[in-house]
């Protein structure tokens, strides 16, 4: 498979007969990164699969109008964050009908998940992340797992670098308390 830059792939996408080919390459390039980000947010594989498909369908529908004043990766991640938060919001709305909170049902999902084979400490880490407020969860995952810089995060989330640093700091403190029991 030839290595294309994002810019080249977008140009290729704009040529009518190469549209599917370019899109396929874009999906292959970012599928794992996006999947794991979403999976950390929504927890179960089935939910993550739905959200990831919706993200790439949005990319397909909107890539023609994508303005290259921001990087494709930043734009893609912004869609991923918004789709994940929307999904969690809708899940929260549905949970009003059931007796358990969405966090409790997600923690149960981690314990019952056939597609989770982490260690006990990893499971506790997962549960601690689930208990964070949703936007703080996104900040923590982007920084802790995806090694994203605060500038990039700021561009994606539309929040100041200072606010992001503070958010991450508080998230780390809460998680350390949960994981280590300190």
């Amino acid at each position, binding site marked *: 498979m030839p290595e294309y830059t994002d810019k080249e792939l977008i140009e290729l996408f704009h040529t009518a007969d190469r549209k*599917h080919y370019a*899109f*396929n390459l874009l*999906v*292959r*390039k970012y*599928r*794992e*990164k996006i*999947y*794991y980000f979403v*999976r*950390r947010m929504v927890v179960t*594989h089935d939910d993550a*699969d739905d959200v*990831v*498909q919706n993200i*790439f*369908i949005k990319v*397909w529908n909107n890539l023609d109008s994508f303005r290259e004043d921001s990087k494709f*990766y930043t734009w893609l991640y912004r869609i991923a964050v918004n789709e994940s938060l929307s999904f969690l919001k809708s899940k929260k709305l549905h949970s009003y009908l059931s007796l358990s909170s969405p966090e409790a049902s997600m923690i149960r999902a981690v314990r019952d998940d056939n*597609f*989770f*084979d*982490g*260690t006990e*400490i*990893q*499971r506790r*880490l*997962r549960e601690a992340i689930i208990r964070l407020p949703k936007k703080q969860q996104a900040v923590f995952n982007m*920084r*802790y*797992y*995806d*090694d*994203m*810089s*605060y500038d*990039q995060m700021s561009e994606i989330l539309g929040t100041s670098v200072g606010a992001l*640093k503070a958010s*991450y*700091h508080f998230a*780390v403190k809460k*998680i*350390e308390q949960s*994981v*280590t029991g300190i």
Partner: protein
Amino acid sequence: MKIKHTISKQDQETDNLSPQLESLRHNESGYKVPVGYFDALSPRIIDRINEKDNKVLSKSGILVFRKPVVWAPLMAVAVAAVLLIFIVPPKTNQIIPVYDELADINMAYDASYAEEVLLAESYNHDKEIEIAVNAIPVTTSVSESSDLTEDEIEEYLKDQDIEIEIITEY
């Protein structure tokens, strides 16, 4: 493909993770996916996109009829048709003459029809004469064959109170 992000030294200092969290940071998170999931992801997304495109196309035909510009005239015609059929009473006493030229031609070549027409015409002609005779009831005792002189006739008419001038003019 591994995407690397550059984290500044200053950023790393602010992270200030405990050793335990630091050790977990770059390990796998424990999440697995079904075998072959990522290979099948792209075709599945393309399938969904095509499915949506087809749905949009098939819906567009229905959507055309949702536009008032399209259905309003059709509806007006349908309502008008219903009104004409069920509400406006038909004019039963009005006979609409239908002239069938071809039927006339055919009948002209029909010998029996021609005979009928001739009979009817002669019958009507006789009837007309009969009506005319009845309309002027002239009672006369004078036979047509009698050879009367003019004076005798005038005298007779005077006896019948008929003006002689009218007769002579006629």
